[in-house]
């Protein structure tokens, strides 16, 4: 099956690679600080050249991550406003129905599976979890970086609360990624062991029909309308 469509644009692919690299850097330098009493954490800090350098890396990566998040949201919003893209990542009522339907399917209460559009409810859940989590990490990270500035306007207890939230949210994000995300992109798809779509941008029509049938149907309809018969086509 050689027929494929371009599912992710170059910008989206670059954003994913950047997010991945920064996430690993932030997690490594962050957990070394959160779990500083542990031996592996002290070893990591020493290997990176001391706590001052680890903090420097962590803050540098945090600034880049902030820039990535802001640019992603702003560019995405511009695309949607200019009608260049569909806001297909926004959760709808259907997603809740889909989730309930899949739950019944998993529990063998029914054999019917939900038919997904461009993004299924799991992908939307993960995306918005990441956006909200990133927002919280950025705000609390800023507070921790500038405690003197923050306490000019906010009460002092914000600082230890932000520290607690930054560590808790970071741990949550990390655990979600290593369980849910890794499972879904490595084991749960037909591309067992590795779904490369986010890197290559390409998804085979076969997989698209199976995993995103509504999007596929729309694509088919548009294609027939255009009467185009190109081997590969973009959306």
């Amino acid at each position, binding site marked *: 099956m050689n027929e494929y469509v371009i599912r992710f644009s170059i910008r989206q692919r670059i954003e994913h690679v950047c997010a991945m690299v920064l996430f690993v850097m932030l997690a490594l330098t962050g957990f070394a*600080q959160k779990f*500083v*009493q542990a031996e592996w954490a*002290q070893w990591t*800090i*020493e290997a990176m050249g*001391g*706590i*001052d350098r680890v903090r420097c890396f962590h803050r540098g990566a945090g600034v880049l991550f902030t820039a990535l998040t802001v640019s992603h949201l702003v560019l995405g919003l511009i695309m949607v406003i200019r009608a260049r893209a569909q806001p297909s990542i926004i959760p709808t009522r259907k997603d809740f129905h889909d989730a309930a339907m899949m*739950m019944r*399917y*998993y*529990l*063998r209460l029914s054999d019917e599976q939900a038919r997904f559009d461009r993004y299924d409810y799991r992908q939307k859940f993960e995306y918005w979890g990441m956006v909200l989590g990133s927002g919280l990490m950025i705000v609390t990270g800023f507070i921790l970086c500038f*405690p*003197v500035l923050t*306490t*000019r306007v*906010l*009460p*002092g*207890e*914000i*600082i*230890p*609360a932000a*520290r*607690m*939230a930054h*560590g*808790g*949210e970071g*741990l*949550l994000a990390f*655990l*979600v990624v290593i*369980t*849910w995300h890794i*499972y879904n992109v490595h084991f*749960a798809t037909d591309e067992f062991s590795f779904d490369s779509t986010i890197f290559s941008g390409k998804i085979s029509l076969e997989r698209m029909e199976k995993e995103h049938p509504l999007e596929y149907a729309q694509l088919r309809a548009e294609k027939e309308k255009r009467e185009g018969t190109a081997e590969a086509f973009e959306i």
Partner: protein
Amino acid sequence: MACHGNPALSSKLQNGETISLYVDRNGFAHSVHGKFECVACHFDVSRVPHAAEQFVNRRAVTLRYYELCKRCHFQEYSRLLDGVHYAEIAKGNPRAPTCVDCHGAHAIAPPAKPRVLISRTCARCHSGVGAAYASSVHGRALTEENNPDVPVCTDCHDPHNNSNPLAASWHLNIPQLCARCHASKERMAKYGISTEVLTTYLNDFHGVTASLYRSEHKSPVEFTATCTDCHGVHNIARVDGASSPLIKANLLSTCRRCHPDASASFPSAWIGHYEPSPEHAPLVYAVKLFYLLFIPFVIGGLGLQIILHLWRIVVRR
């Protein structure tokens, strides 16, 4: 003693000063060495009268004779060689103490009977520190009630191998130094002082930085506060005393010593030596509780979905 028992026996030094050669027989007899013969220490004297020696000044006499102690007290002597006092002796500082300057020569008494003697001995040279200590919560408990739990100078500063307390390595070791007493439940229970002071400090930003700098074994890039930077060094006071640098009214100026731009709400960023609880730092406690419940909830939920998914596609297709 036939000669040295005579109070008038004296000798002229090369700088013109006169030095008494009298040894108080009674004082010696009551000293810790009272049962020894003179030659036990002055082993190089085998005939009477012994050969005369010439000394430039009093200090030269001290430097010649303190070396006699090491024949028996070799451990203390060798430890002395690593300390800051010996470094000063080696540099030729005439005010650096040798064995006899602290312990005495002939009328040597146990150094810590009573313990308050130690502070007085050190204060003979370190008078500024001695005065600060005497008015501190530790010093007052020592002088007023001979309290056995409070530290005297030598509990923090090794009397023989005393490292430089102005060194960065010393500064970073202060939490562990204070914790020798303040993390001891038994000792602190008598005074109603929390023993969580060390762990709460070490878990906080300053403490994390200090312990990492400490394990890196190199000079820290940035200064980080340890116990004494907030509580004071020798002049440590009760934290609830009016003059304490740590009661609410004084806390801001204490923070500003390192954070000059700190505003009035900055000090409450430090929630004290408490674990967050509904009474102390309710907001921090709420956040902590939230993640304690929310993380297992989310990960458990997602894990359950994964298991159900696997079960459906693999086992019960």
